[in-house]
């Protein structure tokens, strides 16, 4: 495994948890897959289609999201938003994120 592969693996690992947090945070407001991906990209977090769309279904199957099919601009679309459990989970994860972030900032400043 070369240096690039190692970096890529670690980068993906680092991103994995962050993406879930970002998706949950964005879905406080209802969105469908394509607009969600755009909103994430606009905020600086590019996520490919092959990762995002299956992730949405997984989060829904875990009860963190709820969805419904609706027609918009004469096309049927599946809209997702946070469920009640999802809101609780998001709050817990954000708390954890803040703890990690503070700790890392402290360590990096010391270094």
């Amino acid at each position, binding site marked *: 495994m070369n240096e690039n592969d190692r970096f890529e693996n670690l980068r993906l690992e680092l991103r994995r948890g962050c993406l879930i947090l970002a998706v949950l945070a964005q879905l406080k407001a209802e969105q*469908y*897959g394509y607009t969600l991906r755009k909103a994430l990209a606009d905020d600086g977090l590019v996520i490919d*289609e092959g990762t995002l769309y*299956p992730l949405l279904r997984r989060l829904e199957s875990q009860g963190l999201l709820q969805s419904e*099919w609706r027609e918009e601009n004469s096309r049927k679309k*599946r809209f997702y938003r946070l469920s009640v459990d999802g809101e609780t989970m998001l709050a817990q994860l954000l708390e954890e994120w803040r703890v990690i972030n503070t700790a890392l900032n402290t360590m990096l400043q010391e270094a």
Partner: protein
Amino acid sequence: MELVDRYLKAVKDSLPPEHRDDIIDELGSNIAAHMDEKAGELGRPLTDAEQRVVLGQFGHPVVMAGKYRSGGGSVVFGRQLIGPELFPFYLRVLTLNAILALLVIAAVAIFDLAAFPGAISVFVVQAVVQFAIVTVIFAMIQTHVQKFPESWDPKWQPSAEQQAEPRRTPRFESVTGIAVLLIVNLWFLSVLRTSGARLSADNGNFVLAPMWHEMFLPYLLLVMLELTGHTINLIRPEWTRFRWAALVASYGLGIIIFGALFLAGASVIFIGGQSTGHEIETLQRVNLVFSWSLIAAVAVNLFLGVRKTRLLLRRSHESGG
């Protein structure tokens, strides 16, 4: 939107049946939104080349489908050999092979209980060999898909008209077919090639009749024809006539090979030493199983051959008219 339909069909073929339609509807609506926006920016409908670029961003259909199936499994030896997206297919092929091997063990147990302990050790060796071969094949597919994610082109997928063809074979069936053909036949061809190889696990005196060894080259040709049929379906599924022609040839050859073996009489013979009453009884039972299996093989090849020949003739007639 024909390219989108082809892409969605390719993804659909590899999805779990219970959520297939729902996932495809959602994926289709997201692709459509993506394409609508691009078309809006350009002020005109997208060309085929532009649609291919958009579909390329969604990734290889097998990988995309695998992500929906993914239960998080993977195979890692130092580096990841088989990722979560291919893992469900890998598991399916391994399970299929294990079932086939267990059926053979069950047959041994039914017909010769004395050979059962030996058969288990053969099963263990076979299981390790099969695991290694299947893992290598899937690791190669994983490497290919990762290194060349754009290596799939929707034009390779059959059009809606071709998809409506009732005899179309899903690509995944061909992947499984190739893996099973290679695993079973590499072993079987090595047996055919080794004249006098003992059949029973305890190195007893049962060997295949000489006629079977004479069938090595025709059987090798039969395997190559079947591999050709599966490979055509995998790479160029729209070449149905070539695939059917290869399969018709393989069924015809199958009838000749299995028919000749049946007519040749005993498939398994006894060599050297004094045979006990138990061994003679076992030999008779084994030969009976071989005879019925050969009759079944001829019947299956005849049935499939006639069916495919009719399809081939009908398609030729339609093309001619």
